[in-house]
């Protein structure tokens, strides 16, 4: 990107709008998935049956563990709820990741980029590894 284009792009870019959209859409997608799960549970069983514990060693296993869909305890509704919870949990993570990219590559404010980068690393470690 030419320098003058970059300056214009930065001037028009609203970081707050982007963060706001990430948080709002993350919450809405999460709620949507859970509402669909409730509807499917109601259609399949005539009631909402959600009595089970969520457990996984890491977010990827939590998100992708219950495949094939029919194999998960609780079936499709359980899978949809897992995805809903995962989206909610990953929303602040994505917000931090986007903030870091913004500070590093758009505003070139290295102090803030390093700080958000550290937070991102800690969150990544806790999300990807089995600590307990």
């Amino acid at each position: 990107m030419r320098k003058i284009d970059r300056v214009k792009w930065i001037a028009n870019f609203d970081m707050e709008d982007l963060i706001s959209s990430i948080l709002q859409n993350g919450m809405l997608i999460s709620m949507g998935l859970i509402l669909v799960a409730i509807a499917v549970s109601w259609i399949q069983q005539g009631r909402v049956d959600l009595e089970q514990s969520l457990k996984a060693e890491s977010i990827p296993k939590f998100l992708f563990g219950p495949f094939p869909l029919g194999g998960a305890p609780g079936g499709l509704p359980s899978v949809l709820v897992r995805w809903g919870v995962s989206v909610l949990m990953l929303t602040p993570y994505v917000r931090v990741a986007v903030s870091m990219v913004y500070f590093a590559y758009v505003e070139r404010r290295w102090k803030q980029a390093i700080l958000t980068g550290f937070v991102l690393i800690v969150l990544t470690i806790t999300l990807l590894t089995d600590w307990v």
Partner: protein
Amino acid sequence: MSFEWLFLVSVISGFIGAMSGVGGGVVLIPVMTLSGIDIKQAIAVSSISILAVSCSAAPSYVRRHMPSLNTSAFLEVFAVVGAFIGALINLVSGRRLLFFLCGGILFLSSVLLWKRQDEEGARLTGQEKFSRWLELEGSYYDDAESRTIAYRGNHAFLAGALMFGTGLTTGLLGIGGSALTVLILEEVMGLPTKVSLTTSNLIIGVMALAGANVYLEVGLLNLQWVVPVILGVPLGAFVGSKLLVQLRNQIARLVLISVLIIWGIEIILHGMRGIL
């Protein structure tokens, strides 16, 4: 506890959490534990409710440029490490003494907030070198006062150390993160109340995530309780966040003080009854 009842409690907790900046657990944990749900499971569900409050209340604040992104970037470093360690401690500890201490700290905090009567406009004070280096200053447009309010954050180093303790408390207890963060932002860093409330809404999301993942790993998140919380908290938080933007500063402060006192009483009573 039925789905419908927990959904209603979640709506109320989301409303209070967003409007006062104390997170969702203030209502949720006492109600859940008094209904016979295990405290550790209630704390785990509370961490999800904090996530929901953060994701649903923060967007409207962020769009209005109210939170200080530089301040949240700095404080999250300490908060996230504290929250993760706190959640790990939760798994191996009895917590009655910690609840008593936490209740006492909240009473003290509410007294400090009650005594201080500074207005938003008086916030543009001097700034020490480290906070200036971190660029902890900014401004926002206050709808209630119809003017732009500039501010400078101070004492960043002390605030960072205290944020580690706040993260620890949040990871351990599932409540208090937002209330204590607001206190640090207001009392230590000298930020305006609305900037403190809205910035804390961003920070608590990251803090709660660090704790929630630990609870997920040990199976403390129960679908039966997680689902009504995820659906109910955002509804209450959405209304609460709309109200905060229009509230005058003193009202936001009074709401926060009231909630701190209620939370302190709840925690001490829980400890005395030995149901923790």
